[in-house]
């Protein structure tokens, strides 16, 4: 057998060598940091302006690696080490809410020192201040946020307003895709059932699963996808789908027919969070970086490039100077109204998480 993977602050103590080692290993999703091409010694090279600025100001050398492609996959990569209380070689890793929640539950993260995070304390948008899984933001700091909703191709279909239409409209049959991540999709199924995704029962979840099952059985849904839906949408392989806001902004630059809608049932708000894993020896350095990106100007610099929702209060104003065309983009700076309506998925304990994942997997076929 294998022992429990749970760790506690007592069972897994990490040293902090930040005072002597001015380095930081940062694992992030690809294309999730502002880039710029410059000429250097006659050759074009790509640099990360904001990160470079951080390095200059802090004197910390950042080893920035874009090796998070998928939450579950990444979990597989680090779970052995974290369960064993061994180093992962990373100081910051950026993971989505539900995965961050799991890490918190398992005790695999280092508690952050709030006193080192004045900008975060001051500028984190209020809607994100207290997620169900990390009430006091003791372990996590949002990097970027985004909305999950519906996208459709206006050239190929008439307006799609709700998940209900997505699952039942006959003209969409076989031309609809949903996201393959359980939390994304089930949040809307729960809303359709009239349940509160932030507080629901096993029974409600069961009904939501049944509804999804029905739609799949009917052949309404063509595929459950990751990011590939974007291509399918452009190509016309699907005409309407569950989608993430940041992707749709990208598509809209090129193809104005692609529309993003806030479904009648509601919106989902998620964030990818910076986390410091156990055995990281540079927590203080990590905190410096977190705080750096909560400076509104730095945040706006980042947002102007990645186009996701900026979780930093004051960035919208700072954006004026950086790219005024984006200041009023509802998908980057949604109104606090929109944000207030947005839902989050309830934090789950390990057993429940596993059970829900199983039920969902059974429906989508894997």
């Amino acid at each position, binding site marked *: *057998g294998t022992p429990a993977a*749970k760790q506690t602050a007592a069972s897994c103590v990490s040293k902090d060598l930040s005072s002597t080692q001015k380095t930081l290993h940062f694992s992030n999703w690809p294309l999730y940091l502002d880039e710029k091409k410059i000429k250097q010694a006659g050759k074009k090279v790509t640099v990360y302006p904001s990160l470079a600025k951080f390095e200059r100001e802090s004197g910390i050398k950042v080893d920035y690696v874009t090796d998070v492609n998928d939450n*579950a996959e990444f979990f*597989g990569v680090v779970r052995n080490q974290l369960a064993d209380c061994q180093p992962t070689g990373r100081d910051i890793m950026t993971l989505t809410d539900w995965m961050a929640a799991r890490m918190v539950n398992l005790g695999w993260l280092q508690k952050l020192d709030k006193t080192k995070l004045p900008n975060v304390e001051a500028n984190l948008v209020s809607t994100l201040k207290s997620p169900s899984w990390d009430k006091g933001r003791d372990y996590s700091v949002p990097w970027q946020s985004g909305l999950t909703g519906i996208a459709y191709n206006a050239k190929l279909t008439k307006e799609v307003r709700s998940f209900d239409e997505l699952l039942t409209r006959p003209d969409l049959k076989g031309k609809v895709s949903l996201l393959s991540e359980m939390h994304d999709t089930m949040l809307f199924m729960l809303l359709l059932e009239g349940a509160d995704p932030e507080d629901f029962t096993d029974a409600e979840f069961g009904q939501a699963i049944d509804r999804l099952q029905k739609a799949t059985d009917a052949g309404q849904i063509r595929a459950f996808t990751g990011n590939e839906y974007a291509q399918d949408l452009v*190509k016309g*392989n699907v005409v309407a789908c569950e989608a993430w806001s940041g992707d749709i902004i990208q598509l809209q630059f090129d193809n104005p027919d692609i529309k993003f809608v806030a479904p009648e049932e509601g919106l989902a708000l998620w964030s990818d969070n910076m986390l410091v894993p156990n055995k990281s020896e540079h927590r203080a350095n990590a905190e410096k970086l977190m705080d750096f990106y909560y400076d509104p100007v730095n945040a706006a610099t980042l947002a102007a490039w990645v186009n996701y929702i900026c979780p930093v209060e004051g960035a919208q104003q700072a954006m004026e100077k950086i790219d005024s065309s984006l200041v009023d983009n509802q998908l980057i700076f949604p109104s606090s109204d929109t944000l207030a309506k947005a839902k989050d998925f309830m934090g789950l304990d390990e057993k429940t998480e596993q059970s829900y994942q199983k039920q969902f997997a059974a429906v989508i*076929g*894997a």
Partner: protein
Amino acid sequence: MLWLVIFFVLPTIQLIATSLYDPNGSLDTGYAMTWSFSNYWHALQQFQSPFLRSLLYAGVATGLAVLLAYPLAYSIAFKAGRWKNFMLVLVIAPFFTSFLVRTLAWKSILSDNGFVVSALQALHILGPDGRLLATSVAVVTGLTYNFLPFMVLPLYASLEKIDLRLIEAGKDLYANGFTSFRKITLPLSMPGLVAGTLLTFIPAAGDYINAELLGTPRQYMIGNVIDSLFLVQLDYPAAAACSVVLMLAIVVMVLFYVRRAGTEELL
């Protein structure tokens, strides 16, 4: 050998052990060794159809790969002359672009509004609503494509060493082109053919990326199941049990196949 023992035998033993852990364990509580052979029963029961689908898709893809690879390997071995090496590299060169890029290209080629589908619709092979993408056709096409070099290269290596004088002798003994192929070339290339089918079938049966990118959950193979059990559902015992079943099934089939093909020397 030591290499294999360290990097393969040890993990395999661990895998078998995991497949017998308590299915009710979790990361929270840990997994106890309870010798739960029922994990296998459950795996077989619950994932019967992806299992069968894996074997079916892999089988069909292997068959198609043989049909495509044989003429190619044959031409390279016997007809290419000094272009031999060049053509060999042509076979493998497409695989130096990235897997994902290739598959995305396939997605484009097979997309609902792409020329292939349009052509097939015009020929009434596909209905007006018919599609290729997100069907088993696309998955099998992808599998076939991606494992083709694994068929071509061993076949080539085996064909290349055939003594042409034997084929001549066959022709002299009234075997026409096809018969001498069937009775002489084919049996003599058997080691290559068997190796090729193994190199294609085995990884194809365990593959999940083609099903994931070109298919839908209806086309999911056992690889997708294991992937999901392992990474998403975190049901390690079930994942291990499925893996062990897959490995055993393949080993049994390989043994049977190799015996039938009369190429025991490959074992």
